[in-house]
């Protein structure tokens, strides 16, 4: 058995990875939802830092915007309901279940580690092939080329998942979505300053994604945040609910399918892009995807946070408790 020496690794790398592992364990082990959510938010932030370290700036931006921003906001908004009390398990049973889980986890980890130890430190063949083909894709950024040209079937299916999630959330949120009646002077100023800045930032991320880190998903997350802030500040037009919002969400999916059909008609292969119009096609599809994802994320947030009157009374009672415990 080889001795594990840490001489080849940078101290900062070890620290960041250790912090990520510790926050991951905290996020799953803390019994109260509030603590687990906070640990998860820190985990997401450290993960974004780690992605920048691993030379994946696109993924870092997306993790910060979607993992920490949107998923974190959804989880924090879910805290307004009091955590239901779990029926007490017999103590011995609890210990036994944890022990079995730990044992199975250790076995799985050992198996995974054995597989991983066989991997070499040289990159696989697919990477250089993809990088070489980028100049024939219509854009100059490799990730956008892969997402919107080489593997755009994956992106099509991903946008389908987002559409289904948004439709499902809209169908299940029986309660009316809370409307903000009197936003107050501070919120009105926020709406005027922040929302246009965020929309502009989303547009910039979208266009810059063709040659630098950026792209439709990051821009969609920022646009979703802009819509949520606009709704919470009382902007009536930003109510991402109902038929009109669903139309915008589904439009992205339908446009993508249409693009696939055009590719089939022109080049004979479903979803293939001809180099002469690839850039225009990619940019227009990305624009529609940005709008779709933004509206879908706003719909998910508003549907997940909608309250009826009983829950509103709960949250008013829970707020002082949360403030004291936090």
């Amino acid at each position, binding site marked *: 058995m080889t001795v594990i020496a840490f001489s080849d690794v940078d101290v900062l790398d070890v620290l960041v990875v250790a912090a990520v592992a510790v926050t991951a364990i905290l996020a799953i082990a803390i019994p109260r939802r509030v603590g687990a959510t906070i640990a998860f938010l820190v985990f997401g932030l450290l993960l974004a830092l780690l992605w920048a370290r691993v030379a994946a700036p696109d993924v870092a931006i997306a993790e910060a915007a979607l993992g920490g921003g949107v998923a974190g906001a959804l989880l924090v908004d879910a805290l307004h309901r009091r955590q239901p009390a779990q029926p007490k398990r017999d103590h011995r049973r609890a210990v036994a279940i944890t022990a079995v889980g730990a044992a199975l986890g250790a076995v799985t980890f050992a198996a995974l580690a054995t597989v991983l130890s066989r991997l070499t430190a040289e990159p696989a063949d697919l990477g250089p092939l993809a990088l070489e083909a980028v100049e024939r894709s219509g854009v100059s950024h490799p990730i956008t080329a892969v997402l919107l040209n080489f593997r755009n079937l994956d992106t099509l299916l991903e946008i389908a998942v987002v559409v289904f999630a948004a439709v499902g959330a809209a169908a299940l949120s029986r309660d009316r979505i809370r409307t903000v009646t009197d936003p107050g002077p*501070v*919120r009105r100023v*926020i709406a005027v*300053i*922040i929302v246009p*800045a965020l929309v502009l930032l989303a547009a910039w991320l979208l266009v810059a994604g063709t040659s630098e880190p950026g792209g439709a998903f990051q821009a969609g997350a920022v646009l979703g945040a802009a819509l949520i802030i606009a709704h919470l500040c009382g902007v009536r037009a930003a109510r991402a609910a109902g038929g009109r919002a669903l139309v915008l969400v589904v439009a992205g999916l339908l446009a993508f399918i249409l693009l696939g059909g055009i590719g089939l008609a022109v080049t004979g292969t479903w979803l293939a892009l001809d180099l002469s119009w690839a850039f225009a096609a990619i940019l227009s599809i990305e624009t529609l995807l940005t709008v779709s994802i933004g509206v879908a994320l706003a719909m998910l947030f508003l549907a997940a946070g909608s309250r009826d009157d009983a829950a509103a009374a709960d949250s*008013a009672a829970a*707020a*002082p408790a949360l*403030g*004291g415990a*936090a």
Partner: protein
Amino acid sequence: MVIVDVLVITLLAAGVFFVVAGTVGLLRFPDLASRLHAVSKADVLGLGLIATALALHLLITEPGWAAVGVVAKLALIWILALIGTAANAYLMAGSRRRAEVETEEEP
């Protein structure tokens, strides 16, 4: 160049100090209002110092229009963080105050 390096490191260290101080305040202060006070002031100041240090380092090592663009983006980040933190603090304290007033009103 060494003077600029020392300045950059000093600004970074000061920024980190203020952020840590804000976090210590968040953990140690007794109630919501004082915690918001600590975090919203110290964290934003620390962020501003770190952003200044990065901007300075970039302008010295790679001067040019690209660097000016990055400095402008750093300034934008700081301004957005400032507005967001201030608005957040106001809204959190306001909603807490309203909840307190409601519980006081039901004798």
